[in-house]
């Protein structure tokens, strides 16, 4: 096992920090019909923010609903049925944000269609829509070996975990593939580890949970090198 820990990769892994600045777009939804209308009109960046990026900006301490729309349905509209529907849709199953938007609109339209009333947010719980700008900074030292990779992972910030898990499928153009398993697959003969990482249900984990899960997985495969000390 030590051999593979020290084996040099063909290409090194560069951890990247990911910094978001949220930008309110000046529109708010007080009820479900308004949300539907707004989501038809705004840019895909707005959907991308509320489905993926918001977990980096401001996440609940315990992930119950995996995107802002489901969370809003549960907390603001107090409509658990809708929250369940919005939570169960998996944005990673779609190839682009146009299709993701269509999927969200379909859920909302279908739900409203059968409803004899329009669900309203309780006062103070209106949804203010945002988008975000992203800056990505490459870490100063690359990881050539799995040992270095583990050390880098222990030092990586939560935004780095977000970037390599949540942004990767869109960047790589492959559904449910993250940067970590992609690099390991390309450079090392560790199919079980690659498979295990890809089976992590990332959408339902908080970022600290994701980091801990990944470290535990590496630890299991490679021993003591991947223990994080908080």
């Amino acid at each position, binding site marked *: 096992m030590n051999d593979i820990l020290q084996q040099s990769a063909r290409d090194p892994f560069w951890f990247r*920090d990911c*910094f*978001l*600045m*949220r*930008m*309110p777009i*000046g529109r*708010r939804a007080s009820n479900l019909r308004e949300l539907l209308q707004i989501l038809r009109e705004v840019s895909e*960046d707005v959907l991308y923010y509320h489905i993926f990026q918001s977990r980096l900006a*401001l*996440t*609940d*301490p*315990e992930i119950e609903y995996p995107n802002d729309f489901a969370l809003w349905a549960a*907390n603001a509209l107090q409509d658990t049925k809708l929250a369940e529907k919005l939570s169960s849709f998996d944005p990673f199953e779609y190839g682009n944000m146009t299709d993701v938007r269509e999927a969200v609109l379909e859920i909302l339209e279908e739900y409203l269609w059968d409803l004899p009333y329009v669900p309203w947010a*309780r*006062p*103070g*719980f*209106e949804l*203010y*829509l*945002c988008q975000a*700008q*992203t*800056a*990505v*900074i*490459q*870490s*100063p030292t690359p990881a050539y070996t799995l040992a270095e990779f583990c050390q880098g992972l222990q*030092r*990586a*910030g*939560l*935004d780095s975990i977000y970037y390599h898990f949540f942004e990767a499928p869109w960047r790589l153009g492959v559904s449910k593939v993250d940067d970590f398993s992609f690099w390991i697959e390309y450079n090392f003969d560790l199919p079980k580890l690659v498979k295990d990482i890809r089976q992590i249900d990332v959408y339902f984990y908080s970022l600290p949970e994701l980091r801990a899960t990944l470290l535990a997985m590496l630890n299991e495969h490679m021993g003591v090198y991947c223990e994080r000390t*908080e």
Partner: protein
Amino acid sequence: MNGLNDYIPIVGQDVIDQLHRLAARLTKRRFVHINSTRTGGGVAEILSRAVPLLNQLGLETNWEVIIGDPEFFEITKAMHNGLQGDRVRFTPRMMEHYREINRENAKRFTWEADFVLVHDPQPAALIEDLRDRAAKWVWRCHIDASRPQRHVWKFLRDYVTRYDASVFSMSSFAQNLPHPQYLIHPSIDPLSDKNRDLTPTEVQAVLDRLGIRRDRPLILQVSRFDSFKDPMGVIQAFKMVRRHTPCQLLLVGGEATDDPEGPEIFARVKEAAADDPDITILLLPPDSHYEVNALQRAADVIVQKSVREGFGLTVTEAMWKGKPVIGGAVGGIVLQVRDYHTGFLVHSPEGCAFRIRYLLHRPEIARRMGKLAKEFVRRHFLITRHIRDYLTLMLFIDNPGSRFIEL
């Protein structure tokens, strides 16, 4: 003064390393903050901490303060209240005096900078005379300007539109403006007197000094005595709880000098508490940070039953002490108190009473919520995140129009 490394045990080495990596992209840039006071108020408090930290990170950061006569500050107070939605008198003569004081300050300033961050309305008009002194100007609005009085906003907007960007504390405060608007939440400093760790002995000493006994559960609200913080609603809730559970209520704060209803509210609170041995009112001087810290740590349940709120930093402070907060479902409280996770959001004195009883009877759940609350603040509302936002903001101001930049 605390250095960046003093924050490592609190936020982790990774967070501080990131600040250094971000700052490395901005090294030697000149950064100027301008506000209207060096002491007192949340803006001065955060700047007094943030400016030295930004300098430690290698940005040449200066903090400038505008000078004005009492009339100027009366005018800017009216502007402040008008932006918050109060009906205020704002005459052409007041506008002219506001411009005049800004012009005088502009003549006095000698700085040149890459970025200027102008805080709140008081110095906003400086851009008229000093536009060429800095490459980029950003207006930082700390006020809840979600429903401003039209005539005040119309006047201020003329200046704000000349800026390269503006920054608001909450999405709901954003305005219709022709430049990029960003969101930066306020923060607290975990090493300040108001928030640093205290030993049980230190906490007890403050309680002894203030005559607070811990013989029954302590419910606390820290806030000014004004109508928006609803102290009468808190008393009402407390009396409902006490019918079932022995406990005491502590209302801590200062008098509201700028709320016309303040004195009347305070008189009613005093009257309601006068013959009640279980209610204590403490009027503390504005700099009693250490005492407030100790009281928050001593409390069993902390309440912030506001009916209107900007961000609500008292909630952040309470959560940082590992306390579950019962808050009114308004403004930034909704953002911080995640219902059933870090506390409870309530809409009435009855709801407040119900949740106080719930937490008093379930100390284990209260502890768990408090723990989550502290972690939530650690990640999102500490000064290190604020510094990170400032640095990231400058990166984007430097690269206008880019949705994504790789450095």
